[in-house]
């Protein structure tokens, strides 16, 4: 056994711990410590300098969570905009994933997946820029809307722009997650239902929807967590006017210089992320156990 041989040469420390040491150092020292230091910041009384194990207060959290302005204007805007954009992403992504999953030609399917995933490999700033070019006042989308007789649209530097941008970012994630789920539906079950005379809508409601619903929830929570933390989209497509948490953390720390408050906001964002992830995970586990 290689473990025994290694231990003989490196006495006392078992090889697995030696091998894990760099990762442990990275995660503990270079990741865990900054997070702990940030926690200390968030607990530092306003107006004082943070110190390791210094005085502790919940004032920064209370200021955010106790103020209707922050709750409504920032937290609720963040959640509302994210929910809306994720709902749009699901409404587009679900049928899209369906179409891609049942494409018969493997070559075409690979090409479609590549086209959908392609934006994921580019950085968010560039994707936001591309969406901006489409949504401009004198851009193609506005021109098209005017062409069909719609009133002039303002799609940029407001909430609409942020919702469109976030949905655009979310669709590829959701589609990729769903294709795997849809491909796992038992095709025999579907064929059996058809041969027994089931109609399309009936089939969808009784066979396909129940089989894909856990996947939809998983995909939704994934894109929701990405959306609530988004930074480039509200800054660029919202012109900085749509107050979302991710963007405000940066601005509060770097423009206003209030690091303590930005830290508290960071942990509130983190809590929102973990909370939404665990709610869905627990719900899915319960549902699976019931079945």
């Amino acid at each position, binding site marked *: 056994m*290689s473990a025994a041989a290694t231990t003989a040469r490196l006495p006392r420390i078992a090889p697995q711990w030696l091998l894990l040491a760099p990762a442990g150092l990275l995660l503990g020292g270079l990741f865990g410590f900054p997070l702990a230091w*940030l926690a200390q910041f968030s607990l530092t009384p306003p107006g004082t300098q943070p110190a390791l194990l210094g005085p502790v207060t919940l004032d920064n959290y209370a200021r955010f969570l106790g103020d209707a302005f922050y709750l409504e204007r920032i937290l609720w805007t963040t959640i509302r905009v994210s929910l809306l954009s994720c709902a749009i992403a699901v409404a587009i992504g679900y049928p899209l994933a*369906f179409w891609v999953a049942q494409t018969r030609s493997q070559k075409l399917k690979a090409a479609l997946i590549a086209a959908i995933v392609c934006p994921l*490999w580019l950085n*968010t700033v560039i994707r936001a820029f591309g969406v901006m070019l489409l949504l401009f006042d*004198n851009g193609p989308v506005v021109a098209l809307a005017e062409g069909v007789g719609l009133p002039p649209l303002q799609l940029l530097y407001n909430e609409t722009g942020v919702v469109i941008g976030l949905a655009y970012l979310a669709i590829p994630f959701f589609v990729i997650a769903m294709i795997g789920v849809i491909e796992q539906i038992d095709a025999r079950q579907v064929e059996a239902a058809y041969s027994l005379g089931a109609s399309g809508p009936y089939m969808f409601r009784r066979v*396909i929807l129940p089989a894909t619903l856990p996947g939809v929830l998983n995909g939704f929570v994934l894109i929701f967590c990405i959306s609530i933390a988004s930074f480039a989209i509200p800054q660029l497509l919202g012109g900085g006017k749509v107050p979302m948490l991710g963007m405000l953390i940066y601005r509060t720390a770097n423009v206003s210089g209030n690091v303590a408050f930005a830290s508290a906001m960071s942990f509130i964002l983190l809590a929102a992320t973990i909370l939404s992830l665990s709610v869905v995970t627990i719900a899915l586990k319960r549902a699976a156990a019931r079945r």
Partner: protein
Amino acid sequence: MAAFRKPRDPGRLALSAFGAFWVLVMVAPILVIVAASFNPRHIVFPPEGFTLAWYGKALGSENFVRAFLLSVKIGVVAAAASAAVALCAAVAIVRYPFRGKEAIVQALMSPLLIPTVVIGLAIYQAAIMVGIGRSFLALVIGHVIIAFPFPLRTIMANLQGTDPSLEEAAIMLGEHPVRAFFKVTFPQVRMGVAGGALLSFIVSWNNYPLSIFLSTPEFAPLPVEIFFYLQWQFEPLIAAVSSITIVFSILLIFAVERMIGLSAFTR
């Protein structure tokens, strides 16, 4: 997979039209950037003319060239470091039994769970505290942390497919365990290591919410430089810079596709 719908279903046709439309929409912003970079004067789509002048300006722009090179440098160092750390950790996890393995794997994957903005602020404050501030070192540390789970995943997957007995035989025949690993097992997981390093490079290459905390106007990786620029100015130059970045990213995608397959990033 068998088709779910009966053939010649009108619903199927509608679904195809819907799907084709949205696939086009997904790539449209990228195509629009490339098209807009050929504009002679103003940044508009559809373009008003055709010129390659902005590409010349982009390649001659000190700021963008500097940002490009900085991004490459950070990416290479972060990729090498995270692949090396991930290789060690993956060997420990796959090859050795120990208590709390599940929890350790979860902890190692945790940077994927935490919003990058939060990691950025945390590293920035810690960097100020220890006196390195906004520096190359701080940027590399941040990028290694967010990139590390990707090579860990690819290398673990590759290691699980290897047989430890050959390596053990080499050790029993007197080879040093470390050398035995690199002679026997490493060649089998090489693609996972290289692919993982490449994914790390892409994570670093694309990162912006973490980098922005550790950048200054004179010292910014490419995505941050583009972001700063987009906030104040709007000329075809930025479309040309973005197009060059897009081409570079597409080359990286092809490399990943060759090495480990495209789903590695999103799984």
